[in-house]
């Protein structure tokens, strides 16, 4: 008999599997990708301490630890439905239906697309696709690229592409329209970049950051933003240029770009074509939560967390009995937070499964505390308002579900 099914072998899922298995639970982890690690295996950056965060090594460490605890990890398996039958969850997968009393959904995040004319051409890819091709598959995505969209993830991956010797020619914004939203507004983009200014895409941004945090200075700053951009590790960041169209017949040949005013409006007659053989679209991340949605779990829209997220407690319980969540499905944050949340979920499952009292309570409390301290120590936030988003969810949980005792806080369905 299997006790736990973990969906997603990323940092949250593996950490959850390890925590549950450490209390003697029998755990199966399933993942669609060819190897475990999730998006952790693409990550590669230097910490403020100077140390390298090598996602491949971190994944291998987690994978080894899980294997030592006899966790059954199955890659290349897709899940297409999740539903409950009396006391057991049915996880419908490409290798048949698996059942267990506890399920941890750790499906991570997906990228918001920014559709624009020509974006279906071969050679156009999400920024995350370029990361995976570069760091995981070690295949060059092209010789000369353009990134459309300027956000923290785009800069992190720009760095990784440069490390691998891939030439990124420039970064431009998407054209301002309802689909691109804030990503097409120079001032909004500047505002979001300033939150990471201490990690500084460039000395200029770093110097200007405090000054630019003031709204009216920022407006002036955008008005006089250099036409040729500010260089980020040698790649010009063009906040006053917008991509109008990606051109090419059989594949990408270039991007038609226009100058914009400080509000992101196109200046007529300023169009130009920049050649490129690949284009990365960087629209940011949202929680990938469809599976939890089909299970019947209630959701809340919390923009600070990246979009619609399943209701969950700080112990990573959902209102549905036996269903737990961890990682980016609960809100967009770093891989380290995902691991800390996964550990919490794993202990919470062990507690629900009736594992011994004192030890589990202590470890669960420490794990919850650890999520908070990892968040406080984070050098970078995908969303600077993350604390407020987390607070909203915990208040929501308190108001909706805390009437019950903690042990019985989950609703019985099925």
């Amino acid at each position: 008999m299997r006790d736990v099914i973990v969906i997603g072998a990323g940092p949250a899922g593996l950490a959850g599997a390890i925590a549950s298995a450490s209390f003697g639970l029998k755990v199966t982890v399933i993942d669609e990708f060819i190897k475990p690690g999730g998006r952790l295996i693409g990550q590669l950056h230097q910490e403020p301490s100077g140390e390298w965060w090598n996602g491949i090594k971190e994944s291998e460490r987690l994978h080894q630890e899980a294997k030592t605890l006899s966790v059954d990890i199955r890659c290349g398996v897709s899940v297409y439905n999740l539903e409950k039958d009396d006391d057991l969850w049915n996880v419908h997968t490409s290798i048949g239906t698996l059942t267990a009393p506890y399920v941890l959904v750790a499906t991570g995040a997906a990228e918001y697309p920014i559709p624009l004319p020509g974006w279906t051409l071969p050679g156009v890819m999400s920024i995350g696709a370029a990361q995976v091709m570069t760091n995981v598959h070690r295949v060059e995505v092209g010789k000369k690229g353009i990134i459309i969209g300027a956000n923290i993830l785009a800069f992190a991956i720009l760095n990784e592409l440069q490390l691998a010797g891939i030439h990124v020619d420039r970064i431009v914004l998407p054209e301002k329209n309802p689909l691109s939203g804030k990503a097409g507004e120079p001032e909004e983009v500047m505002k979001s970049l300033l939150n990471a200014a201490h990690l500084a895409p460039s000395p200029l941004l770093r110097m200007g950051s405090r000054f630019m945090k003031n709204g009216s200075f920022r407006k002036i700053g955008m008005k006089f933003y250099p036409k040729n951009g500010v260089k980020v590790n040698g790649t010009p960041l063009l906040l006053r240029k917008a991509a109008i169209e990606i051109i090419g017949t059989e594949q990408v040949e270039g991007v038609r770009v226009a100058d914009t005013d400080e509000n992101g409006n196109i200046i007529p007659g300023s169009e130009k074509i920049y050649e490129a053989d690949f284009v990365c679209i960087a629209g940011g991340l949202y929680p990938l939560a469809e599976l939890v949605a089909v299970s019947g779990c209630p959701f809340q829209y919390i923009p600070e967390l990246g979009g619609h997220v399943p209701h969950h407690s700080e112990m990573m319980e959902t209102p549905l009995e036996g269903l737990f969540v961890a990682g980016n499905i609960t809100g967009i944050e770093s891989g380290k937070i995902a691991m800390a949340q996964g550990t919490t979920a794993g202990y919470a499952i062990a507690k629900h499964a009736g594992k011994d009292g004192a030890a589990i309570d202590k470890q669960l409390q420490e794990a919850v505390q650890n999520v908070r301290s990892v968040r406080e120590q984070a050098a970078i936030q995908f969303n600077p308002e993350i604390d407020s988003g987390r607070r909203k969810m915990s208040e929501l949980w308190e108001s909706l579900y805390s009437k019950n005792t903690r042990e019985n806080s989950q609703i019985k369905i099925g």
Partner: protein
Amino acid sequence: MTRIINHPILGKLEDRKAVPFTFDGKTYEAFENETIAAALLANGIRKLRVHEDSGTPRGFYCNIGHCMECRVTVNDHANVRACLTVVEKNMVIESGKQHPNIVKRMVEQQ
């Protein structure tokens, strides 16, 4: 395209076994444990299919299985995601083709 053999942090790409496969009737080489999308890109191929109705070209977009843009036919099995499927020895891969749309053609002729 070429492979990223040397990497300052991730190190040198270890020697892997070459695996032959065909794509639209031509033979190529992948490395073992490599996805179809990666192997084709390494061979300079970006176009994985054409849109079933319009016939316009498509390649991989998300590279992690979400977008379904990279679907190809593998050993006669249609709509297989190239980004999640590992190349196996002598695999026969076909690009996705344009489908006939009789109604549309009729409307166009009127």
